[in-house]
């Protein structure tokens, strides 16, 4: 086992092309657990912490570019929190301060867990994932990027560069069900945007289907929207909750979220 630590994006992409089996590690909040518990012994780890191009956020015209290395703590502050309030709310529910200082948006996409807290708020803002390899860069809408339980559309030689969002600046919120206010993997989660500009309701849920899923409806369908969201779920029974509870909770959360956003 060895660790590769590229100092630039070019070097990172070259190393990933040479070693497609290398496991990327950014904040380590998923990868380290697998290492600590002997669940993974990759031949190579690709440490992305020193790749400056992946850090922070920037603005390109109307688009916010969230670097793959943007931490949840970063997403809770300043411009990102102002422009993407549901993402900021979701970020604040991730783990603990220690986890939020390390865990990253890019890591959430890389792991592609159905419970990923950043995914619903990014889905309702129609986020696009920017990935790259030495062959070039491409942009994949987030709902196409998430292809299954802990599976994404990334090719072996590709890295996640950023998430691109055009903030709707419309009324939005995030909700999450769990046994306490910290250190919770979502029993189910929900982000909602009431988009008056487009005349659209958008909801996305986590932990209630193999992937975080987006549901849209016309803005005048608010009454039936909770049922539509619950109906779009395909939850399972597991250690955190039952399928029936998750479907019920999504119905209740959607109604509450609409109330909050329409107020």
């Amino acid at each position: 086992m060895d660790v590769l630590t590229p100092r630039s994006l070019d070097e990172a992409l070259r190393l990933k092309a040479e070693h497609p089996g290398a496991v990327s590690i950014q904040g380590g909040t998923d990868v380290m657990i697998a290492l600590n518990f002997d669940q993974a012994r990759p031949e190579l780890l690709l440490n992305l912490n020193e790749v400056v191009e992946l850090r922070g956020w920037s603005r390109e015209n109307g688009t916010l570019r969230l670097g793959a290395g943007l931490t949840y703590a970063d997403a809770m502050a300043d411009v990102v929190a102002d422009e993407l309030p549901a993402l900021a709310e979701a970020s604040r529910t991730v783990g603990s301060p220690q986890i939020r200082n390390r865990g990253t948006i890019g890591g959430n996409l890389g792991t592609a867990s159905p419970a990923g807290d950043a995914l619903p708020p990014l889905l309702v803002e129609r986020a696009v994932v920017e990935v790259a390899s030495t062959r070039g860069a491409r942009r994949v809408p987030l709902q196409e990027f998430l292809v299954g339980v802990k599976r994404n559309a990334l090719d072996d030689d590709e890295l996640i560069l950023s998430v691109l969002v055009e903030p709707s600046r419309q009324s939005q919120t995030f909700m999450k069900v769990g046994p306490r206010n910290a250190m919770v993997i979502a029993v189910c989660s929900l982000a909602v945007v009431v988009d008056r500009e487009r005349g659209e309701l958008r909801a996305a849920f986590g932990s209630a289907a193999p992937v975080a899923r987006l549901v849209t409806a016309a803005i005048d369908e608010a009454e039936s929207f909770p049922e539509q969201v619950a109906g779009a779920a395909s939850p399972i029974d597991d250690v955190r909750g039952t399928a029936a509870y998750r479907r019920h909770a999504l119905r209740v959360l959607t109604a509450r979220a609409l109330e909050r956003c329409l107020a």
Partner: protein
Amino acid sequence: MRVSITVNGEVREAEVWAGESLLTTLRDRLDLPGSKNACEQGECGSCSVLLDDELVCSCLVLAAQADGHEVATVEGLADDGSLHPVQDAFAATGAVQCGFCTPGFVVAAADLLRRVPDPSDDEIREALSGNLCRCTGYQKILDAVHLAVER
């Protein structure tokens, strides 16, 4: 592989396994057992340290990621034998029961007071939400942080 980490202001070098956590390096190779090893999955906060001035679980940092960076552990809090105000307040209020979680709580509380000198009760609870005390001595721990703020 070899790493060079500035720990509590001193450059330390160690030969580490590539998949090793910073926590293991601190405890087993650098003779700094103050950071405790309990859950190894970021749930308990017993291994809390500062990495480049940010509170992190050292069990979730790859030792190789700390190479060339600065780490502050609980051992570095006391200044030349005199306790950090948070350590002093923990002793004064009896915020220590079995003591296993204490280093993590002390590091997290000291980090909070460095950033927010006069935190509200809610801010203290949120700042310490990543640290577990199995003796459930939370009230005295909150008392200790309030005392450290007053002092």
